[in-house]
């Protein structure tokens, strides 16, 4: 009997967690639909949920039963979309120099910029 109760409780917790995440997504989609903005709705949903967690309206434990498996398997969900680049192989072939330069220069410049900003302020902190 107690095991049945435990299972029932965890099922309700899972459904509640699922409802919270889907409600945030739905509200975000509704906001973007009514305002006609181009901001991606799932990102707005993420921001809404962060705000609810930071203000304490929703507790972390209420969201984790559904969020944890979703986050663990997240890479799986973008594999089909990631393969889509094969539809643009001609464009990639035509502009491969641009793409290769972007692939190297964008992370390299950001990596150097960020590490230098922090190193600079940290060494200044130690001298002060």
């Amino acid at each position, binding site marked *: 009997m107690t095991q049945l109760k435990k299972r029932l409780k965890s099922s309700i917790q899972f459904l509640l967690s699922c409802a919270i995440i889907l409600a945030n997504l739905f509200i975000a989609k509704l906001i973007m639909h009514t305002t006609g903005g181009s901001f991606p709705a799932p*990102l707005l949903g993420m921001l809404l949920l962060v705000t609810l967690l930071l203000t304490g309206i929703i507790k972390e434990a209420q*969201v984790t039963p559904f969020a944890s498996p979703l986050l663990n398997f997240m890479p799986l969900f973008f594999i089909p979309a990631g393969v*889509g680049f094969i*539809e643009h192989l001609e464009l990639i072939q035509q502009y491969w120099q641009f793409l290769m330069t972007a692939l190297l220069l964008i*992370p390299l410049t950001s990596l150097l910029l960020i590490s230098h900003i922090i190193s600079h302020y940290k060494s200044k902190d130690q001298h002060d």
Partner: protein
Amino acid sequence: MINYWWLSSFAVVGLFLILKWLNGYSEKPIIKSLTNPVFLAITIIAVLLVSLDLPYKPFFEHTQVLSVLLEPAIVALAIPLYQQFVHIRKNALLILLSCAAGIINATFVGALLGLFFCAPSELAASVAALSVTTPITLLVTDSLGGIASLAAAMVIFIGVLGAVFGFIIFRLLGIGNDQAQGVAIGTTCHAIGTAAALRENPKIGAFASVAMALSALLTALIVPWLYPFLQQALL
């Protein structure tokens, strides 16, 4: 003719699980990064579809069950973001500013390169949001009119590059500060870089996790407004 496309979802899940299991066996950090299951799964499926002359559309349609879950998963990213917020209080402003600087730099360099190489607008928009985790890049690039799948593949490749060469670059340049290394790797090389950072040193990994979560938030807030502004300003 029998439609075998319905097997696509099972094939993707099976391939991913096998690759993840194999990745768990490698102990050398470089091998672990190069055999990243997402990177390998995308490469193997792309090579198979192209070499067998199979169309992408039915593959994508029959794997919708996986793609549909991406939206609630992005909402669920709020959890690691919330968890990391607790840890950044002490260095909040410095981490926030350096993350923002990295994201602005990435978008700015992307826009400049697009202009320099006279890239068509959809291709130029595809490199506007590369300094962030893959699911966010898919959405932001799509909203900018870019090729989301290309951006996603590039982001994953950048992650692998960062995981393999990131710490070599730091050593060559004499950047030894843990916070500097962690925030830089987390912002530019997201999850794959963060995993490598955690293997390198737990403290660097912690800063990388914070920066990765923060860059997801900042990219969502900054890039959709910055890129159109840069496009107008540079043209």
